[in-house]
């Protein structure tokens, strides 16, 4: 959703979405593809799946990841009138652009708008610009979203839907066919990652929806509503046509969707045609609300049912989604200008009204009304209320006769709005994929994130990023439990990372440590899960960080791995203790000093070295990791051996680190997770690096920005800290 959405924002600039990143230029004109976190995660993914759940294209959105919806869309015209043989899907006409050394002009344009925003971001956040320093373009700096987006474009493959397949589906070209084409294209793609241009879809969408035919930033929630409505309308129109065997031309959805466009929650009353096979959109997203109105004069209660595709809920400061939903169903007095027309006693009467959910949808879409019209400014203002949302939910506001009123929902997608007001901003989405955990989709950039990342958008964090639309899908208690058990390892890992962030420097000071501390052991419980899952868990969580030389290895320290492979024993692996040997500590200290020197070296050199080192490290780590996984299973040995092994491993590791040092200038922002030793080193680089960042990022960024702004006349991203108001001006 967010992916699409940005495309609309930059109306004239067709853009693509992507899923890979970090192509690292090794030499100036040579592009060496580097494994991205996402790719790493996918490395042991096995064969491609039929259902497309393991595709990670930049465009993807909450709708695609709703299994039900995706399958329905794909399978919808089950018997295509044009006689497509059953079983073979019409091939979508896709142009796959090869990865290009240079992005095509149109994309560059898009890139610019991003850069622009990013520069602003950085300028704002890095404080005072340091004049006279060379400016590094944001997109050249690894770790920035721009960089990743750019390289995703470079890497490709880029899927462009050249033309519609509508005829193949026996339907006129419409929003539905556009969406279906996109889904199919992703499904049929032979790669797991890539960039997909939704341009064609957007053209159709804009054609049908006048509102979106401009360069304004649009509302993701409206967009969602419109898309769903269009799909419903398209499908129904099609069904109607088939049924009546009439050649009805044109899609009726236009008028309808425009009518219902403006941010209404209960946007549809499409009670019309519900032929079998066409109601699937309703089945998935539609619930039924009952509004009970009780006339206070004659005490007559009347009920009216209405369907909804999502619930727009009012927010209040420091509340939870649960509470907002309850408030949604709280009693409301209809009085004064808002009186109720009572059929029983006739005329306008005061009444009590309350809305309850009569039928729960399979996918519950909650739209948080963050944009509120304020009379003072006569404009929409964004509310930064802190609204917490749990990973699981049950609805309190059901009617007594509702079926399964205790239905369990799980959060599976969050659309995040970044920006200070209702008129500008950027959307990203965070989606829980079937078995690869949470993934962040930001335009072309797709990145795995950890589960706790989802909680960054309650509204109380700096950066003006807030959850805007929440998607909860039906689940069961059993599934939740199973999943929690699966996630266990990741939780442990995150907890460890959290601790390491705050790890003190005291470990830099070598304390006389008793010998017994020399055994380093990973946090992973050996007998916990099958090898495959373990491997996955580890990689998946190691991934969220973009590349940097001192990046976390999946938090498991390297030492035990070496030990495991070297001696084939790690009797201690099962313990969850990470310790530092004296050697270790000394070595670290040395390293740190050396690294500090290194950090002062010229930036360019470092960059190169770093990239190189990074690749090596990744490889090494992966190997080590895999070996350790296996070794850990047949662990059983005495302490003495372990000690030896760890000494050896320390030596090995030291050697490795020495190599590494050259390139260890490091990145601050993301380098702090990972193994303890790693994070500590990154701390030590922190200062140096920080200053260099300042110098490199600021420069004359603001001026450039202004220029670019003039050119494009809009910005697609409004980031930065709240108080730095001028940047959106």
């Amino acid at each position, binding site marked *: 959703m967010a992916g699409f959405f940005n495309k609309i924002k930059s109306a004239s600039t067709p853009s693509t979405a992507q899923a890979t990143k970090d192509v690292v230029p090794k030499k100036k004109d040579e592009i060496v593809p580097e494994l991205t976190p996402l790719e790493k995660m996918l490395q042991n993914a096995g064969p491609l799946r039929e259902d497309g759940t393991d595709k990670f294209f930049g465009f993807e959105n909450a709708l695609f990841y709703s299994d039900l919806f995706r399958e329905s869309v794909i399978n919808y015209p089950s018997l295509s009138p044009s006689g497509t043989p059953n079983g073979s899907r019409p091939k979508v006409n896709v142009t796959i652009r090869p990865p290009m050394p240079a992005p095509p002009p149109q994309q560059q344009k898009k890139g610019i708008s991003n850069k622009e925003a990013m520069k602003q971001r950085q300028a704002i956040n*890095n404080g005072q610009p340091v004049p006279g320093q060379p400016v590094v373009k944001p997109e050249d700096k690894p770790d920035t979203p721009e960089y990743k987006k750019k390289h995703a474009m470079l890497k490709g493959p880029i899927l462009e839907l050249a033309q519609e397949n509508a005829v193949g589906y026996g339907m006129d070209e419409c929003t539905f066919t556009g969406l279906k084409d996109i889904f199919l294209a992703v499904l049929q793609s032979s790669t797991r990652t890539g960039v997909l241009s939704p341009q064609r879809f957007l053209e159709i969408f804009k054609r049908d929806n006048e509102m979106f035919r*401009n360069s*304004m930033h649009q509302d993701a929630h409206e967009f969602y509503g419109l898309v769903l409505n269009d799909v419903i309308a398209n499908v129904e129109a099609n069904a109607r046509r088939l049924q009546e065997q009439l050649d009805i031309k044109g899609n009726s959805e236009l008028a309808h969707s425009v009518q219902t466009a403006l941010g209404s929650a209960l946007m549809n009353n499409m009670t019309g045609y519900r032929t079998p096979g066409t109601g699937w959109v309703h089945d998935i997203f539609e619930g039924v609300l009952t509004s009970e109105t009780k006339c206070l004069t004659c005490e007559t209660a009347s009920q009216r049912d209405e369907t909804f595709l999502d619930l727009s809920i009012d927010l*209040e400061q*420091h*509340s*939870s989604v*649960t509470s907002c939903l309850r408030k949604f169903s709280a009693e409301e007095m209809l009085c004064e200008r808002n009186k109720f027309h009572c059929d029983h006693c006739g005329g306008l009467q005061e009444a009590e009204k309350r809305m309850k959910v009569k039928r729960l949808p399979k996918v519950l879409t909650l739209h948080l009304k963050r944009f509120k019209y304020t009379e003072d400014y006569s404009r929409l203002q964004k509310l*930064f209320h802190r609204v*917490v949302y749990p*990973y699981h939910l049950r609805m309190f506001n059901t009617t007594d006769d509702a079926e*399964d*009123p*205790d239905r369990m929902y799980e959060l599976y997608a969050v659309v995040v709005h*970044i920006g*200070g*007001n209702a*008129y500008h901003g950027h959307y990203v989405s965070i989606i829980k994929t079937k078995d690869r955990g949470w993934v962040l989709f930001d335009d072309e950039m797709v*990145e795995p*994130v950890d589960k*706790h990342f989802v909680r960054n958008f309650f509204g109380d*964090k*700096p950066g*003006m990023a807030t959850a805007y639309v929440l998607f909860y899908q039906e689940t069961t*208690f*059993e599934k939740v439990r*199973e999943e929690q058990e699966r*996630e*266990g390892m990741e*939780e442990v890992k995150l907890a460890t990372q959290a*601790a*390491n*962030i*705050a*790890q*003190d*420097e*005291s470990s*830099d000071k070598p304390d006389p440590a008793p010998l017994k501390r020399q055994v380093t052991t990973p946090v992973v*419980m050996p*007998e*916990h899960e099958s090898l495959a899952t373990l491997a996955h868990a580890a990689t998946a969580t190691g991934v969220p960080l973009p590349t940097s030389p001192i990046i976390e290895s999946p938090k498991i320290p390297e030492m035990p791995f070496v030990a495991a492979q070297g001696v084939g024993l790690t*009797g*201690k692996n*099962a*313990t*969850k*203790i990470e*310790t530092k040997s004296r050697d270790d500590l000394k070595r670290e200290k040395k390293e740190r000093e050396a690294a500090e020197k290194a950090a002062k070296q010229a930036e360019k050199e470092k960059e190169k070295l770093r990239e190189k080192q990074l690749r090596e490290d990744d490889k090494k780590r992966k190997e080590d990791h895999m070996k350790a996984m296996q070794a850990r299973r047949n662990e059983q040995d005495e302490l003495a051996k372990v000690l030896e092994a760890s000494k050896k491993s320390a030596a090995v590791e030291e050697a490795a680190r020495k190599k590494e040092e050259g390139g260890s200038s490091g990145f*601050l*922002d*993301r380098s*702090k997770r990972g193994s*303890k030793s790693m994070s500590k080193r990154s701390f030590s680089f922190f200062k140096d690096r920080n200053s260099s960042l300042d110098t490199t990022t600021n420069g004359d960024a603001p001026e450039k920005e202004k220029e670019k702004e003039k050119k494009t006349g809009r910005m697609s991203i409004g*980031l930065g800290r*709240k*108080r730095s*108001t001028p940047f*959106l*001006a």
Partner: protein
Amino acid sequence: MFVLPPPPRYPAGAYGVGLGGVVPLIETNNTLSNPSGPEFRFLVGEGTYVLKEDLNLATPPPHPSEAPVVNPNPLATTPQPATAGTKMSILSLESRPPPFFYRGPSATTLSLTGGTLSIQEHPSESRYSTEGGMSSDDGRAASSEGPAASTTFGSAPAFGEGNSLLAPTVSKDVNKKKKPKNNVTKSNSSFISRVIVNDSLARKLTERPLDGLFAFANINRAFQWLDMSSPTKQDYLTKILFTKAHCLCHDVNMVTKSVSHIDVIMGFSTGEIIWWEPISQRYTRLNKNGIINNTPVAEIRWIPGSENLFLAAHMDGLLVVYDKEKEDGHLNPEEEGLTASGSGSEGELSNGSAISNGIRGIRINKSVHSKNQKTNPVAAWKLSNQRINAFSFSPDNRHLAVVSEDGTLRVIDYLSEKLLHLYHSYYGGLSCVCWTPDGKYVLTGGQDDLISIWSIADKALVARCQGHRSWVSALAFDLWRCDDRNYRFGSVGEDGRLCLWDFSVGMLHRPKTVAPTLHRGSVSSKFTAPHRTDTNMSMNSDGKGSIPEDEWEENVIEHAVQPRAVIPMLPPVLTHVVDSHPACWLAFTEDAVITSCKQGHVRTWNRPGVPTGNEEKA
């Protein structure tokens, strides 16, 4: 069509600027204010509570060596250190009897393995208040015990009893308690950044009233020792600034406290633990560099009645018992294979499956009965891989209630290291837990905005309390308003509200529709939720299928989630916004209710009839 709007004007400060995001750049002092107005008082049945004062603990700036983590990108995946708002440990040095004595109707002793698991506190219960649930306000109440603790060992055996290695070395002189080894003020540890001791500390300590309250409070990387009885309580007695680690939890030992000795333990975001003795300003580091466990400590408590042992909940689901005076050892689960078999069948039974499914039991990584007790940990129990948010000892000192981020409540017999019950929240994680003063009920609060009341005797959920508008963050009983049949407790939540609740045994046992909650014992007799059954739960929890019925008593009992319709829903007797920030802790004292929030505001709400300082001045 829209016209492009004028440039945005952000409401400075009010919104958006994160509650957690405001990081001061210069060090500030605590401030004390006395706001008044209608919003600073609230009326309950017994009268009006009035805000006495608002003590704002200064949030320390980041350590100079620590570059401020300001990432412009709101999508940055940089993990932030764990923080936990401000919590307090309150302590009174004076001995005073608890507000009331709980005398159970019958003096039946507990049968731990039998089917009739009814928890009645021992008639000579004098310790319950030590553990007054989550609240640490037990200072006053608890003081009666102290050295007399050994008498209660008779009723509930002391933790680790039977293991001669753990037998407490009897200290001949109370005033010669063993102190930690390092001087905190002269410390050159890089773990501790700075220690500021009040210039007139000695004078203050001698001049203060004996029954005055001490408070220990954490805020981010600072830890403060305050004298709540002082008119200038904003002047801390001691303030410790840690370099990077954030203090997340702390507790004061009620057994060893005296005028010359206070044992404080603190758990940190690094997983490390500090034992600090404020009077002599000495400290010891435990779990140094995370040698025993390297995940943050979410909750830490002294084991009731113990001088040396305390329990820490690490966020990877491990409960560890430490001895404050022992060196860190190496936690080696292998050795438990041996010890667990000695400790009983449950240990073995759960050993294999526990870790993989996290349900059937607890895995005993090291038993308290282990023969190797030279070093820490004394015991270590792995509950699951999910983060533990809080735990609470039962007033009878036999049981432990543990709540986790995955929404589970575990009732553990920690003396015999057995998991007895496993309950689930309605949905979402559970964040706090506490026992009724008589130990008959356990209360939990969590991310479903509810407080759930679980009956130990009935082994079932008996009520849900709805009143918070966001997640519930802390619970505490008001011992001064509880009696044999009626309970008063308070709760605070992320909505910044304080809710007060009254419930009585009669209310709880009046079922709303059917009476599934009254059935005792086996889950099978229970109402079956429409969407799930107990059987399939046990099946999928370990894939082994349901356990035969006769094993239920011995195995852990996992309880089904009860549908909303069959559980009574209690309303609060009061809800009041006590803070403009999410609240995170509360406690009841004889004179007041004290609340704190994530921004360090500690507010004291005087009980009806207690004069506020403001009035006195006027």
